[in-house]
């Protein structure tokens, strides 16, 4: 699922800057790189991760390629949250069990 990697993708500060540069609209790699203290290939690498996470999409505009924030992520977001809460509740229940064993607080025989 794309959102599985979205948190991780956006946790990197430079990558977050790259992503935020796209808030004002679609931009080519060169324009993004000019605003950040990193090289053009580095920006391309960050965009690749953002593309794989489903946060950013790309399209050709004339002779160049521009990147933009993928506006179709809502369904993916819900799906991601759905499995996220499944996973989280399971971890929570496991923690309760762990405490039961360590502290002998379990009331189940």
């Amino acid at each position, binding site marked *: 699922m794309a959102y599985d990697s*979205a*948190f*991780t993708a*956006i*946790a*990197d*500060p430079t990558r*977050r800057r790259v*992503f*935020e540069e*796209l*808030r004002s609209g679609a931009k080519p790699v060169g324009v993004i790189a000019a605003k950040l203290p990193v090289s053009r290939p580095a920006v391309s690498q960050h965009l690749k991760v953002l593309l794989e996470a489903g946060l950013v*999409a*790309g*399209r*050709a505009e004339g002779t160049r*390629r521009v990147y*933009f*924030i993928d*506006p*179709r*992520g*809502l*369904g993916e*977001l*819900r799906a991601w*949250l*759905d499995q*996220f*809460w*499944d*996973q*989280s*509740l*399971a*971890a*929570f*229940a*496991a*923690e*309760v*069990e762990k*405490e*039961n064993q360590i502290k002998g*607080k*379990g*009331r*189940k025989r």
Partner: protein
Amino acid sequence: MNTVAIAPIRKSILVNAAPERAFKVFTEGMTRWWNKQYSINASPISEIVVEARAEGRWFERGEDGSECQWGKVLAWEPPSRVLLAWQIETGERWRFDESLVTELEIRFIADGEGTTRVELEHRNLDRLGDQAAVARQIFDSSDGWQGLLDRFAQKVD
């Protein structure tokens, strides 16, 4: 007007503990069960704090001491219910947004002796999509969504 309907997420799980302890582990003990991969801070999570009162903050503290807020406590009713605001904007960037409120309600219901049914509901998810909807309208008006999709499809490797 583009209204995005998105159903709330509802989950339920049984735990072998009375509601009091289940409530405590969920809130006070969140650091112990939260998957640390899920962070919006650049610094790895050292602690997750749910302040034990209405209007309290819900935040992660990084290993470098920096704090990154996730939301706040809307209702604090131990041991039966806690209502949190999940305020992480996801449409265009992942960060805390004071103006965004999606509700995360957790109920702790005694189900026999020493067992609690924990029910979780994450609602108002459509609000997470406001930014996405805005972006969609922009694309619709400037370019034509279908045209954009068609070109995108052609250019995908």
